[in-house]
């Protein structure tokens, strides 16, 4: 699972499909980390938005490619600026393909 800058989504997708990752789930999210929020001004009314728009990408993969997936996301989503986001690696208990009932790695 990775939280990245929205405009980096296409590069991340391309990097992951290049690794053979066959699917991902993307969600538009807001949040904050070390990156400061932005200031919006509407006719003199100033609002500092401390929640910054990000994209959350969720990818399920086999254990043996997990490291390469993390590297690929880290490389593709990197701009070198604060606010590039984070990657979290979680263990999955099980996976099932709904159409066929296949499980685990064959379901990915």
């Amino acid at each position, binding site marked *: 699972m990775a939280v990245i800058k929205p405009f980096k989504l296409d590069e991340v997708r391309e990097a992951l499909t290049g690794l053979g990752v066959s699917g991902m789930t993307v969600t538009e999210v807001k949040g904050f980390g070390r990156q400061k929020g932005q200031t*919006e*001004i*509407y*006719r*003199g*009314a100033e*609002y500092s*938005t401390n929640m910054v728009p990000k994209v959350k990408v969720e990818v399920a993969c086999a254990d043996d490619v997990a490291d390469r997936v993390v590297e690929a996301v880290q490389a593709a989503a990197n701009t070198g600026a604060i606010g590039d986001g984070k990657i979290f690696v979680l263990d999955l208990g099980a996976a099932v393909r709904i159409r066929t009932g296949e499980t685990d790695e064959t379901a990915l």
Partner: protein
Amino acid sequence: MGIVTGAGMRKILGIAAGTAAAATLLYAAPALAQGAASAPAAPAPVADKGDTAWMMVSAALVLMMSVPGLALFYGGLVRAKNMLSVLMQVLVIVAVASLVWVCWGYSLAFTGGSPFIGGLSKAFLRGVDATTLAATFSNGVYIPEYAYIAFQMTFACITPALIVGAFAERVKFTPLILFTVAWLTIVYFPVAHMVWYWAGPDFLPTQPGDWGYLYGKGALDFAGGTVVHINAGVAGLVGCLVIGPRLGYKKEPMPPHSLVMTMIGASLLWVGWFGFNAGSNLEANGVAALAFVNTYVATAAAAAAWAVIEQVVHKKPSLLGAATGAVAGLVAITPASGFAHPMTAVLLGLVVSPVCFFFVTTVKNRFGYDDTLDVFGVHCVGGIVGAIGTGIVADPALGGQGFFDYTVKPAVTGVYDMGAQLVTQVEAVLITLVWSGLVSAALFILLDKTIGLRPTADVEAEGLDINEHGERAYNL
């Protein structure tokens, strides 16, 4: 039937002694009863087809300013939970104001009676038919009375609709509609009568004093700076003061939910305003074209000026700023549109944006009132800049149109005295501010103490759309 015995109206071709807009025609009922036309000396005037077509197109353009123009302009600026409440308020105000207009509004505004309000002789459009005529600003030139009624109806619709922006997101629907009916009757029709009613160029010489109070004073208001914008702007201000600020005002962010909608609305306002201003000439002629050009360039100047101000003050020019500047420019040029030279119209546009910017940012923040969509800061303040500016830019010495003296027939160009004109303009502004301000305050307080103007805190927090109207703007 259809003999014109009187007529009224507003602005003029070249200059006007008064403001613009309204014409009236006295219906010759006695003549009908006698079964014969009681012989006017000259042949009965016939409405010009070009003028007639222009007035109907202009009326439709002004309606488009309200729906959807103003509705979207306002709607985009509120939070998503209140979007439909604003659209609904504007739509139903337009509907109700139209009905009030044909029932008694037209008669109260544009028949003779007293200098302060007309009579009820044309209530329910009695005596009006397809052959009756309304005067223009030229001797011997008329338009169908129905065209005039339709054109003026759209002004009576947009003016109360403007008010709702001042207390958007926190007003109950039904009391607002009751306010609209009362406000039109007690405030709008009298002010329209005072500024725009006169007997017409062919009748004033023989009916001296048959005019509205401010028209008779010589106040210049081509298309409604006082009647529409100052009138609505000050009513909005007192409304937001009586109702109070929104829950969480200045404590939580309340950003506009869709500036895209606001951009669409502002653009429709600009286009529709050509009907508002150039249509107020009542004739499709050179002065209408002048008003058209002025409406175009004053708006352009004001939009650009607001963007420059924001670039300097905030380092970023915003779309909302430029759109707000455009509306401020439209407001300011409204009373001057048929009087100014295009270059002084540009100056007016350049002046109005910094003034309005100061009011919607510094003044509003300093005093803390929650004029949600800046009805006061843009419409009232911009209207005052325009009304006073009109006294300057109308001067023929500055390329302006001056005014016509209609007390003689044919009308002649009057002698322009800028100092005296400015005094008259200020007087018109003050009368409008005081009358609209006081009566509006009384009406708002009365409604607040009886049926209540403000929804409960829970309703306001959850949003007016779901609670007042039972629907949501966006079901995604």
